[in-house]
């Protein structure tokens, strides 16, 4: 009984350490990957949305609280360290990425939706949050952008980024799940009902 309890505690500590470790890693990648894309040209980062990739991946690999925190912190930290995205737009992006990470984690790890469907749900949730932001918070921050401008910019202008989110991230998560570096799988099996 005591051994079983200790094993459970150790497994919980390992899960917690792994989620924190992945979360920290994804924040760091969220700062570095956009910088890498700036090599290819100044507009490439706005087309491929590179900051979204680590946050989405974090959502699929960790619990909602960690993913939401990563989504909230990454744009703010990037804005503080490198000036991109510029403030006050970084606040809008922080809420968008927070929703992206939390929705991905909730859909994939709690609701146990298929991987691709979870990614689509997360992307839709993030867009919904942005639509709400543009109507409510953005005018308070001095950004009086119209919904049409957002739709034109984000959907038409950044379609390669959306394709990347739908292809690269699920592929990478599948690869990580199969990799099995640690003994326990990244996505725990569904608990049986008594």
């Amino acid at each position, binding site marked *: 009984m005591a051994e079983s309890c200790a094993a459970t*505690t150790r497994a919980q*500590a390992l899960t917690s350490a792994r989620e924190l470790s992945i979360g920290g890693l994804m*924040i760091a990648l969220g700062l*570095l*990957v956009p910088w890498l*894309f700036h090599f290819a040209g100044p507009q490439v980062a706005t087309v491929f949305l590179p900051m979204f990739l680590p946050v989405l991946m974090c959502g699929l690999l960790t619990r909602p609280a960690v993913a939401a925190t990563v989504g909230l912190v990454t744009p703010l930290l990037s804005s*503080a360290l490198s000036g991109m995205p*510029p403030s006050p737009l970084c606040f809008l992006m922080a809420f968008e990425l927070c929703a992206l990470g939390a929705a991905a984690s909730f859909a994939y790890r709690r609701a146990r939706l298929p991987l691709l469907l979870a990614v689509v749900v997360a992307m839709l949730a993030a867009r919904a949050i942005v639509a709400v932001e543009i109507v409510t918070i953005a005018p308070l921050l001095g950004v009086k952008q119209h919904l049409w401008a957002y739709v034109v910019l984000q959907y038409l202008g950044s379609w390669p980024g959306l394709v990347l989110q739908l292809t690269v991230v699920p592929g990478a998560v599948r690869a990580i799940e199969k990799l099995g570096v640690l003994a326990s799988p990244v996505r725990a099996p569904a608990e049986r009902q008594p």
Partner: protein
Amino acid sequence: MKRFLQLEHRPPDSPLARLDARIKLVCLVALLVGIVATPITAWERLLACAVVLLLAAAVGRLRAKWLLARGLILLPFLVIVAFVACLAPARTPGDALGAELWGRPLSRAAVLTGASVIVKSSLALLAFTVVLGVSEVSGLLAALSALRAPRLAVALLTLAYRYLFVLTDELSRMIIARDSRGRPRQWRRRVRTAGAMAGTLFVRAYERSERIAIAMVSRGFAGRFPVPEAPRLPAWHVVAAVAFCGGILLLAFW
């Protein structure tokens, strides 16, 4: 790359560098709220914020070249955002300015929005830059913890700060390898190379994070990082911070 993210920056010795990081963080938040809340038409208040920040930079002995280099990073992004903001249509016929941009009529409200984005973004970046320039990152993280910021966020930021050093080294090696193979000239090939490098970075970084998680558990990590006890703040620090925050908020909301 480390220079770009200011990872190797050490704050020069100054009264601001010696100030407690908690005070600096609280003042930064007040300043950001003040900047965001001030309407663009109240330009004299925004100018006052800029003067306060430049004074702080001077007291903190930050070099003008260093500040300018950080500001220039933002320039291309700001130009795009301001350009898009200026394209918003006029809401009322009387709002039109009579000028055109890219075949679209400019409106007063849209131009003010563009100006607002440029001015406020630049001021916010200047505020962040000054605070980061006069503080150690480890001190700021400890201050966040002492100010009762969510433990999860502080733990993630601490780990991310450590990872940045590791990953920038990894990325530097990959960039040297790419350059030694010959940097592609075509836009498409450059994007493909950047994508392949990002993918490789993801996989290597994930393997590293797994090893770090195992190392954390084997060293006794039980789900929470230990939080060191913060020292007591001198009374004059608190008084100065309250006066500064009050002044800034009064300036913004009066």
